[in-house]
């Protein structure tokens, strides 16, 4: 295969080719003999019409013919050749694309592909005539630094860019516009570099600066602004598919914002882009990776995830990995790699096997496919602020100090077990009183009949100060649930209660009920009137006759007989009766099981009592398993310490305060740890997971295992790098890589000029658009590498160019030749992006809160947006708007729920961030008009803008109108424009002064919780403020305000 890499030949052919493709209008000197360029002219025809069946994809290849390689095209097909170089007559290809017989015609008439046009056939014919030479697709050949085109008869160029631009312009019969006015220029560059318009002071300073480098000084100032990093980051968030929710199914919250903060810092500190790339793809694998580098690796975790019940983990593991590869393909390589997940790529030289070899670099992260709907599905890292780190150290030190005090105190206790010398000890059951003058802690008292009633002497009281009393007609009871700590049942335990039946009014039945989660544990005395449970069983156990009346009687129930087994825990208890008047008192359990808080003098007895100690800390449990005689010193120490700290009453007074202090400190530490930001990161498995070629991309159709490898069309990994994600990232940024630098500069170019040099900034492959300025693209790419991937340097170079600085006015002629301004004979003009429109409105109204970084915020959004779609159990099913200053943060901090993004953003073409986007649409809709006119955010901004005009804009109407117009558009109004807005102001004054209630309503609707000076309000001035609010609303809606010009 002959591969040509020089651009000069191609560009020449390009100019000719375009004319020919336009349908042979006769403008070309001699179309019949003009050289045909494979890349520009021939491959698009073959790719669009033939490669589907005769291209790189082996599986779908028909008739063993492939037309994407010279070997394939010229292979012997049994006596004939598809392409016979130099000999159109012998070329089957030509015969078939012109065949009259529908069975012979290619593409087949019943396929999705139309018949080739005569012009296309002619191109193929002449290409064959001229030798049928193939070229590697331009984007797969590493860029070489081209010579600067010579510029004659022009002092227009400001830097190298303009040499290339001017030459193409002239080839198209275009000439550059003059430089934009200074007002336009400072507005354009300020919006482009910071995402906000300039202030009047900045405009005035620039207008007053006559020095030759006045503009450059502005550019340098802007590049130093922290807003620059925010703005650069904002673009990157689309590419990285950043969201604040998981994006699938429940769409619960996810904590990724520290990654966003990292991006801002990286751009502001002008981190070289190759470093940024390596850190985002593989920061976790760098030697001695810093927290920042790990945070950066969150890039690989930004994809959508699910935890939908019923999902098959393997299926999602595959989807996530495919997403990672696709995203890397789009963002760093401008390639549609995802096409090769199911079959060999139809157009680009990436086989399905090669896709899974790339897959193998990204399939061994430790995150689980099911995200658990968690805020922080591991792996995550903590990103504490310096203050938090310091606080944490402090707390840890304090805890250590208390621990050592405690240790000393325990060591100082001279404890001898009272039963130390006994041959054996036996545990006697003891009585533990649970209910006496009050219900146990945590219990929620409830009843059937009148509320709980505690009575004191002279009413009958058995123990303490009080008893409970109940009078009932039929069934009556008082009970509780929720007691904590619960009552623990042991072997052979008896539950008891004291009861006194009123001799004047005795009941016919009394019942005790115990709740361990269910109430099906009952014992009754007397008649069988209450029919809960099953009589004779543990759910309704008969205990015999009623006890004697007029005296306190102790009732006892064997726990086992009412179905309460050792280890069960009671949280509720009911005193129930049928009729009569009953007094209850002192109830609890006779047990060997220690109840919570029960002290023991003897460690031996305590150990006997607690058995396995299921509720004790693990280390204590472990020691309990070992017979006392077999315990080593450390084990003895562990259990003794626990006993003396928590059980032994003798030193409680001394130890308890220290324990309390430690608990408090530990709680503080936990609260601090919870408050420390955390973010999702990449982490590699110790042993990489084997990757397989998946038949048709189906997770459950594994075929051959594959190893990590980059596609063969590219250079191999650089010397000395590891064959893993880190090596892959280093490979991407190696100067030999044909795509990385080109794709990167192209995406930046697109920001400034509205369209990339390659229009399809997501696809540099065979099906992508051909660059309008191939040499310029290569110059910029090599320049980026030469300058050590200097991001700010490249932004500066672009905005310093004369091409960028042109007036955007367009003549009819220029519009006819170049409607989309691809050849840059005028300055860029297009609508600002969603975030910039909102930010600018907040900025000119004085509302913008310029806090940099931090978690996302929830500014105004109409009610019901989340509720309409949210899964009922999702933590983003209901939207709770933030208040105060959080309403006025830059839009890049707006909380991004991916299944229902903020409408004021999506109305202006912000993508959902469910997948990677490097090129936004730019539409123009009535929804946008409604948003700017009526969205509370913009109405409120209008009102504050109005107040700012009144406060700062001078004293006369005209002063104020000029001030307002300049703030919104960055330029002075012309006289007729001033007339229009003056007239509107008068109209609105008339309107509102006749309707003060309307004025009040408008202003009330746009009130906020701001500083007092913003809220100072003289209701007499409402009509005036309202009129200015509508004027401000007009200014925020102007085409010029929402456009970059």
């Amino acid at each position, binding site marked *: 295969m002959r591969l040509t890499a020089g651009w000069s030949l191609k560009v020449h052919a390009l100019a000719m080719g375009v004319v020919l493709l336009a349908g042979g209008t006769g403008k070309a000197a001699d179309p019949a003999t003009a050289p045909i360029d494979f890349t520009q002219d021939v491959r698009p025809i073959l790719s669009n019409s033939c490669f589907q069946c005769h291209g790189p994809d082996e599986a779908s290849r028909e008739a063993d013919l492939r037309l994407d390689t010279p070997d394939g095209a010229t292979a012997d097909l049994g006596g004939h050749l598809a392409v016979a170089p130099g000999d159109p007559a012998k070329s089957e290809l030509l015969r078939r694309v012109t065949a009259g017989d529908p069975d012979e015609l290619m593409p087949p008439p019943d396929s999705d592909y139309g018949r080739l046009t005569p012009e296309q056939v002619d191109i193929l014919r002449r290409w064959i005539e001229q030798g049928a030479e193939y070229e590697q697709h331009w984007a797969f050949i590493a860029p070489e630094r081209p010579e600067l085109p010579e510029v004659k008869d022009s002092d227009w160029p400001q830097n190298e860019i303009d040499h290339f631009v001017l030459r193409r312009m002239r080839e198209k019969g275009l000439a550059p516009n003059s430089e934009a006015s200074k007002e336009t220029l400072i507005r354009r560059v300020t919006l482009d570099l910071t995402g906000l318009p300039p202030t009047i002071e900045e405009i005035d300073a620039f207008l007053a600066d006559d020095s030759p480098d006045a503009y450059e000084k502005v550019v340098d100032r802007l590049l130093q602004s922290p807003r620059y990093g925010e703005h650069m980051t904002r673009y990157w968030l689309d590419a990285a598919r950043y969201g604040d929710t998981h994006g699938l*199914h429940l769409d619960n919250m996810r904590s990724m914002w520290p990654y966003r903060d990292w991006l801002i810092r990286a751009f502001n500190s002008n981190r070289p882009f190759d470093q940024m790339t390596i850190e985002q793809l593989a920061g976790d694998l760098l030697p001695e990776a810093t927290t920042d580098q790990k945070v950066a690796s969150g890039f690989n975790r930004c994809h959508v995830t699910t935890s939908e019940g*019923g999902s098959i983990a393997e299926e999602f593991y595959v989807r996530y990995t495919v997403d990672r590869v696709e995203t890397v393909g789009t963002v760093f390589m401008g390639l549609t790699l995802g096409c090769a997940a199911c079959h060999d790529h139809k157009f680009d030289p990436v086989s399905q096997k090669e896709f899974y070899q790339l897959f193998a670099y990204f399939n061994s992260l430790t995150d689980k496919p099911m995200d658990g709907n968690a805020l922080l599905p591991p792996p995550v890292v903590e990103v504490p602020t310096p203050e938090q780190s310091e606080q944490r150290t402090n707390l840890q030190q304090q805890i250590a100090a208390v621990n050592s005090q405690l240790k000393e105190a325990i060591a100082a206790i001279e404890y001898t077990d009272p039963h130390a010398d006994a041959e054996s000890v036996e545990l006697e059951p003891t009585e533990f009183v649970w209910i006496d003058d009050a219900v146990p802690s945590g219990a929620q008292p409830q009843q059937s009949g009148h509320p709980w009633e505690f009575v004191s002497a002279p009413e009958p009281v058995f123990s303490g100060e009080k008893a409970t009393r109940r009078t009932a007609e039929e069934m009556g009871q008082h009970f509780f649930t929720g007691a904590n700590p619960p009552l623990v049942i042991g072997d052979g335990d008896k539950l008891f209660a004291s009861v006194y039946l009123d001799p004047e009014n005795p009941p016919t039945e009394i019942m005790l009920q115990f709740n361990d989660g269910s109430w099906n544990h009952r014992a009754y005395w007397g008649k069988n009137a209450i029919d809960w449970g099953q009589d004779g069983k543990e759910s309704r156990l008969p205990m015999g006759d009623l006890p004697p009346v007029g005296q306190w009687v102790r009732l006892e129930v064997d726990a086992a007989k009412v179905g309460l087994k050792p280890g069960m825990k009671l949280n509720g208890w009911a005193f129930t009766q049928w009729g009569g008047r009953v007094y209850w008192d002192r109830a609890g359990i006779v047990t060997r099981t220690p109840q919570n808080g029960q002290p023991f003098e003897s460690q031996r007895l305590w150990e006997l009592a607690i058995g396995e100690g299921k509720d004790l800390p693990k280390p204590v449990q472990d020691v309990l398993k070992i017979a006392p005689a077999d315990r080593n010193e450390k084990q003895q120490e562990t259990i003794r310490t626990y006993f003396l700290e928590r059980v032994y009453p003798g030193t409680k007074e001394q130890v308890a305060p220290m324990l309390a202090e430690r608990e408090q400190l530990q709680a503080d530490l936990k609260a601090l740890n919870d408050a420390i930001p955390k973010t999702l990161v990449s982490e590699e498995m110790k042993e990489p997971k084997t990757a397989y070629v998946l038949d048709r991309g189906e997770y459950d159709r594994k075929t051959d295992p594959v190893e990590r490898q980059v596609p063969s069309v590219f250079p191999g990994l650089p010397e000395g790098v590891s064959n893993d994600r880190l090596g892959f990232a280093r490979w991407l940024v190696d100067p030999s890589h044909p795509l990385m630098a080109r794709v990167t500069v192209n995406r930046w170019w697109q920001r400034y000029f509205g369209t990339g040099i390659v229009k399809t900034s997501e696809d540099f492959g065979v099906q992508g658009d051909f660059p309008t300025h191939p040499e310029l693209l290569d110059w910029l790419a090599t320049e980026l590498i030469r300058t050590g991937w200097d991001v700010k340097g490249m932004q500066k170079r672009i905005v310093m160019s004369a091409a960028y600085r042109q007036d955007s006015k367009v003549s*009819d002629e220029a519009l006819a030749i170049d409607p989309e301004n691809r050849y840059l004979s005028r300055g860029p003009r297009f609508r600002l992006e969603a975030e910039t429109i909102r930010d600018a409105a907040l900025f000119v109204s004085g509302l913008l809160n310029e806090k940099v970084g931090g978690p996302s915020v929830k500014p105004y959004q109409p009610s019901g947006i989340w509720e309409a779609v949210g899964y009922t159990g999702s933590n983003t099913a209901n939207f709770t708007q933030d208040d105060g200053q959080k309403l006025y943060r830059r839009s890049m901090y707006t909380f991004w729920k991916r299944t229902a993004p903020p409408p004021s953003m*999506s*109305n202006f073409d912000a993508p*959902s961030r469910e*997948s990677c986007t490097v090129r936004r649409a730019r539409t*123009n809709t009535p929804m946008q008009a409604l948003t700017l006119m009526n969205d509370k955010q913009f109405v409120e901004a209008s009102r504050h803008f109005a107040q700012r005009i009144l406060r700062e804009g001078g004293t006369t109407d005209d002063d104020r109108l000029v001030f307002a117009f300049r703030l919104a558009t960055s330029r002075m109004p012309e006289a007729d424009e001033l007339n229009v807005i003056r007239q*509107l102001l008068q109209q609105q004054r008339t309107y509102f002064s006749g309707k003060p209630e309307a004025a009040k309503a408008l202003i009330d609707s746009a009130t906020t919780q701001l500083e007092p000076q913003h809220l100072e309000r003289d209701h007499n001035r409402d009509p005036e403020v309202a009129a200015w609010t509508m004027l401000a609303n007009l200014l925020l809606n*102007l085409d010029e305000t929402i456009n970059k010009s």
Partner: protein
Amino acid sequence: MDPLREYELLQTRRHFFGRSAGGIGAAALASLVNPQAFAAPSTAAEGAGVMGEPHFAPKAKRVVYLFMSGAPSQMDLFDYKPEMDEWFDKDLPDSIRQGQRLTTMTSGQKRFPIAPSKFKFAQHGQSGAWVSELMPYTASIADDLCFVKSVHTEAINHDPAITYIQTGAQRPGRPSMGAWLSYGLGTMNRDLPAFVVLHSTWTGRKSAQALYERLWGTGFLPSRHAGVSLRSQGDPVLFLSNPPGVDRSARRQMLDALAAINERTYEQIGDPEINTRIAQYEMAYRMQSSVPELMDFSDESKETLEMYGPEVSTPGTFSANCLLARRLLERNVRFVQIFIRGWDQHGSLPRDIANQCRDVDQGQAALVRDLKQRGLLEDTLVIWGGEFGRTIYCQGGLTRENYGRDHHPRCFTMWMAGGGIKPGITYGKTDEFSYNIVENPVHIHDLNATILHNLGVDHKRLTYRFQGRDFRLTDVHGNVVHDILT
């Protein structure tokens, strides 16, 4: 607002400047007297879609798609399986299950006991279609409906499955069906969007599956083709109402001044986008009156309201949305999609499905009847269904009276009516377990291809070049089901 009035307004704005209109903003004028689509393309001020003309004569001009999110149980509603009565609590034979994958919600179950439907079925109409007692109103229009009992999909979980049927791919990122139609066919009216989405309240299972804006989103198509949600609370269209205190006259003054300055900007700069923007502000202004008029049912007859049932007076109910859908279709909105959630009945299915059917039954039957009465059914396609079906075997506890069902992608029932669809037929057949298809399978790509076909769109030819590939709703699949077409 009529063109003449528009022209006068433009003149008024000229007077604003106090100078002659000669030569100013001729293009702007053209765009105003030739008002365009709701969602005017950024460069071409045309309401027509990218196709210009349909690929062939359409049978339907409009679609109303009643989407049952969560997946209704086909064997409790339409796919009558009397044989199952004898199979109560017996295991689903392996020969039927064929070892195919289950969701992990039931793949761990030790048994797959058959849960026969507890609901009574009867045949209805001349067509003799089987419909369960849960849907008496729908049963009464059986002769207008075409039941397709053999729809199938591959996805087994809600998020991927609903994304699949709505966009043709299980992963997010592709345009929805309504967006494709808006893109291909454009809009047929000047005051309303081409694609409208309505969300309904429900009383079935409380905990309901999520929806996602991608289901009516545009993926890589320009965002102007996205479905616009008409809301039952707050502004029906987001940001429609002027702020308090600002009436139509005050807004008009502001818009006149806006147009005057924007026209001047056009004169200075020459960017045709400026004219489009002027026109879009006028469209927004018109919507401020056309949308409230649309939402106001006071001009509906008593008979009509009664036909939709008592819930029609509660905004946001399925019934109210059905009537609203008719009003939208009447106004030539191309694609209306009503979503109702709550069908994901893994347990307590009998109770929840009864409630859910009460939510939808009367309204959907009234909608079909109403369209028919008005002659709209002829060229309006009505579609009813969910994202997959449910299993014959029980999930969780099983009694004759109570059971639950897991997700089942291998067969489910949808019905269609109107524009180009044969009425009163049943197409496709499942085995006695409603588990496998035994006759005429209809993949969801086939379904979508058929829907497009009825609108005059060849699903293979409505494509969009993105990332070097011509994408379409049906991916690389789909066959039109000619058997069900008139």
